[in-house]
């Protein structure tokens, strides 16, 4: 123990003597560890954002869009022509066992007015299941019920963005707003959900009972038509089955011949999102690997300087051996020097990495996440670098012949 402490003191003194050299050597490790911390923080930030978006979208979500229309040779996008009906939704719910909830949606843009304020937003007519599917809660008030659907009552739920733009401080519950020209009573406010994957503001929306939307807002040539049917499967494992069963069921219901194209499309959003999550994982790994390379380069810097230091201090090593230093004493003395450089560099690097992460995220608005795991890993690997790259010079020093070392000029 005494010898250990003595070795530590000797190493510290040797580092203090060559302050500039020690600092520059450490810089390699500082940059390496800092890069690891910052890169991993950027990567895991992206990963977390995607995970949050998946959560905000609702789990096990399948979206059925009504078909594309063809007019004079031009084909329009999905959802431009309502080919889906409320009955399609009911059939999906009743005939496919792996489906838990179904919510038909009929929506469109509309101008809304309250007092002297007005705002343009998306109005969706749907059923109460919609909120279940999207894992969406109310921050105040109540949701609409089956009675509201049956009676096509003029009630609505407002997204946070709409509330902010129309009400500014006033409690919206119980107030009357006009959507297009129709007056609606506000019965609830939706909890904020933030941006969607595509960057849309999910809170800029109003929900009304499906029947009300059909009869009062978006009157159709064909009653019962909807643009979208949201479906929630019971578990992630059955998503694929549910997808193909919905496809088969709707082809059958719409009497589509085997060679004809679908007049609807089925999308598995969760799958798309998990692909993005995997991409983020790969990116994190990639950034981490690149940063690790700079850590290794820092380690080589330590080895280089330690080799120089051993050569410079050959005579000192000879003196120490002559007065009774064992191989282990010399080995440990130099190993500890390398270790101090790398550990101290690691600690400073963690600090630099955190500052760097902060700067990156404040300039680019990227989400970043510094996990304690990443810090521990960076610290640990700087220690490993110190030992592995410091070992060779230390080992070389310990093998010196004392007579030759004493004679060294």
């Amino acid at each position, binding site marked *: 123990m005494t010898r250990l402490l003595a070795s530590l003191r000797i190493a510290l003194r040797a580092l203090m003597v060559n302050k500039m050299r020690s600092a520059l050597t450490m810089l390699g490790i500082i940059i390496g560890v800092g890069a690891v911390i910052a890169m991993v923080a950027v990567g895991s930030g992206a990963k977390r954002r995607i995970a949050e978006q998946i959560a905000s979208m609702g789990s096990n979500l399948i979206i059925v869009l009504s078909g594309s229309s063809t007019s004079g040779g031009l084909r329009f996008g999905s959802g431009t022509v309502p080919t889906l009906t409320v009955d399609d939704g009911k059939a999906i719910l009743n005939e496919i066992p792996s489906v838990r909830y179904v919510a038909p949606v009929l929506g469109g843009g509309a101008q809304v007015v309250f007092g002297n304020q007005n705002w343009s937003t998306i109005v969706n007519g749907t059923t109460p299941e919609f909120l279940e599917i999207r894992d969406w809660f109310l921050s105040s008030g109540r949701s609409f019920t089956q009675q509201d659907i049956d009676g096509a009552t003029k009630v609505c739920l407002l997204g946070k963005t709409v509330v902010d733009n129309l009400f500014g401080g006033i409690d919206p519950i119980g107030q009357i707003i006009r959507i297009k020209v129709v007056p609606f009573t506000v019965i609830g406010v939706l909890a904020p959900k933030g941006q969607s994957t595509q960057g849309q503001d999910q809170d800029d929306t109003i929900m009304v009972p499906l029947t009300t939307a059909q009869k009062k807002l978006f009157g159709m040539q064909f009653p019962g038509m909807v643009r979208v049917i949201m479906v929630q499967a019971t578990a992630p494992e059955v998503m694929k089955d549910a997808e193909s069963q919905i496809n088969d069921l709707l082809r059958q219901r719409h009497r589509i011949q085997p060679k004809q194209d679908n007049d609807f499309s089925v999308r598995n959003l969760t799958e798309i999102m998990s692909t993005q999550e995997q991409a983020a994982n790969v990116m994190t790994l990639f950034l981490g690997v690149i940063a690790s390379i700079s850590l290794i380069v820092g380690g080589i810097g330590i080895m280089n300087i330690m080799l120089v230091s051993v050569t410079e201090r050959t005579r000192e090593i000879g003196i120490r051996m002559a*007065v*009774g230093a064992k191989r282990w004493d010399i080995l440990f003395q130099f190993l500890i020097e390398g270790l101090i450089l790398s550990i101290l560099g690691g600690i400073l690097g963690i600090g630099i990495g955190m500052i760097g992460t902060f700067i990156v995220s404040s300039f680019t608005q990227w989400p970043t996440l510094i996990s304690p795991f990443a810090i521990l890993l960076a610290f640990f690997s700087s220690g490993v670098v110190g030992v592995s790259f410091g070992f060779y010079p230390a080992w070389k020093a310990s093998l010196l012949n004392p007579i030759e070392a004493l004679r060294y000029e």
Partner: protein
Amino acid sequence: MDSLIQVRDLVKVYSLGEVEVQALRSVSLSVERGEFVAIMGASGSGKSTFMNILGFLDQPTSGRYLLEGINGENLSRDELAEIRNRKIGFVFQGFNLLSRTSALENVELPLTYAGTQSSKRKEMAQKALSEVGLKGREHHHPSQLSGGEQQRVAIARALVNQPSILLADEPTGNLDSKTSEEIMSIFQRLNRELGITIIMITHEPDIARFAKRNILFRDGKIVDDHKNSAPTIAGGRSELK
């Protein structure tokens, strides 16, 4: 078996590439406790090789060397280091002190490797320094000390572990004659008052005259070994302590 040092038929051969150099050719010698021996010889006579073997820094090619009955043959590097640490004190021509390290810490060095406690180390090092007349200069660094003072720090370092022998390789080689005499006076006093056995290499006959026994090496052999009936008494400052 009573002799402190017993050397029998010691041979050392260096092979420099294809050429073999016989540094020592059958050297036999014994040294008793309390002796003060000067080994003389021209450079290349094998005296430094002999000293390295006596100091367990080197191993003989053949022959036998016993220090207090300990045979260095077949011992590992670490075991030899331990013998050097406990039994031998070295004084070199170039002082060989650690620069940027205070006199006190230089003297503490052998104790550090012996695993002595910090407070005990300081106490013993301070005692050794006052023994060579450097009380009050403990915290000076080698660059702040004169050559004679540096050599005295080296002597203190050699003494601090209470070794069986003190081996000095040209201890006055880098010093002027006045300072050399001071160092010799310290050696004589340590030998006389503390009974420390000293073996010293020198090529200066004036310095050898301070020792009680003179041995002459030539071409790897001892050609002369005689007692010095009336060694010169050195009158250095340390006598006034």
